[in-house]
């Protein structure tokens, strides 16, 4: 290793005679004066310091680039890489596990959604069947004129059964009586009662279903129309694209029957 303090001492001893004689033991003031006064030796000094400056500047920017791995050694880098690889595989395993959990939960949610849609569908069907909600859809409107009030409860029951056979889904009488499974008809001496409600004339029957089939169910020989005509009344039937039924029934509470 060269020694810039020792070796210059020997060389300088020879050069010192050529250089302007300066007594040993200079002060800081001498240094400033020497630096301010340009001389030939300053050029070599400047060249060396320029090289040194470039090196320092380069190192500063390398550090400023904030890349601690650029100057790291191979062994350290290998260790870092090993750590990173281990961490990566650990995290990947965690990702896979979490994905499995997520998929499980997802399928559970989907299953629950399907079940809920199914249940809602059944609920809607049962609600319409039980008459607890209003309904709308294509169907027919039947108006029965019976000036002699001779139409009997059994005629009415036959008509309802024929409508059901023709695929009626919802039947309503006089915008107030919802005909459901438990609806009953009774009557005597020219008055007809359905579900405790007296039927007023002319009677209006709204039916939701396939319009043509429902109309045929009323018009066939021996059906509602011909029966009423025999009794001296008349019937008008109009097929409508949208029949709106608003009469509802409260849900009866089963006293004995329980779901099995």
């Amino acid at each position: 290793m060269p020694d810039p303090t020792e070796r210059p001492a020997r060389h300088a001893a020879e050069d010192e005679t050529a250089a302007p004689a300066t007594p040993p033991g200079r002060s800081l003031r001498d240094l400033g004066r020497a630096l301010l006064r340009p001389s030939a030796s300053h050029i070599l000094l400047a060249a060396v310091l320029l090289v040194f400056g470039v090196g320092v500047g380069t190192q500063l920017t390398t550090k400023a680039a904030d890349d601690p791995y650029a100057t790291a050694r191979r062994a350290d880098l290998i260790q870092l890489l090993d750590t990173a690889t281990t961490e990566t595989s650990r995290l990947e395993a965690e990702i896979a596990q979490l994905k499995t959990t997520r998929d499980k939960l997802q399928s559970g949610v989907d299953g629950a959604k399907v079940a809920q849609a199914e249940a809602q569908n059944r609920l809607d069907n049962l609600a319409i069947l039980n008459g607890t909600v209003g309904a709308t859809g294509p169907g027919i409107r039947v108006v029965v004129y019976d000036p002699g009030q001779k139409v009997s409860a059994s005629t009415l029951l036959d008509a309802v059964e024929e409508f059901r056979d023709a695929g009626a889904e919802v039947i309503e009488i006089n915008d107030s009586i919802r005909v459901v499974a438990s609806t009953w008809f009774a009557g005597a001496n020219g008055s007809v009662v359905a579900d405790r409600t007296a039927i007023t004339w002319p009677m209006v029957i709204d039916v939701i279903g396939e319009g043509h089939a429902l109309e045929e169910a009323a018009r066939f020989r021996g059906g509602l129309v011909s029966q009423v005509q025999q009794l001296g009344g008349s019937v008008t039937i109009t097929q409508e694209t949208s029949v709106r039924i608003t009469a509802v029934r409260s849900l009866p509470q089963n006293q004995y029957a329980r779901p099995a």
Partner: protein
Amino acid sequence: MFAILALLVGIALGIWLEPSLPPGLTTYLPIMIVAALDALFGALRAWFDGTFSDRVFAVSFFSNVLIAALIVFIGDQIGVGSQLSTAVVVVFGIRIFTNAAAIRRAVFHA
């Protein structure tokens, strides 16, 4: 005056131009800078002693830097690079402090 200007210009050049160092050299540059610092302090001490020579300074500067880099390079080849670079930094650090002490004595007479 030239010397200090050259030093500043050199640092500015190094920062602005950002010379791209070959990847193999990045571990040696800090060592080389420490060696150069040692040469600088040695030169300053020699100047205060009245034995300064620009030729000797230039030669010692470059040989210092090269030998320091060589030692670390050999260390890297035989697998003790980081230890040897630590050793070089320690040795140069001690020498810089010694030179700094001599300079302090010359400047402050204390």
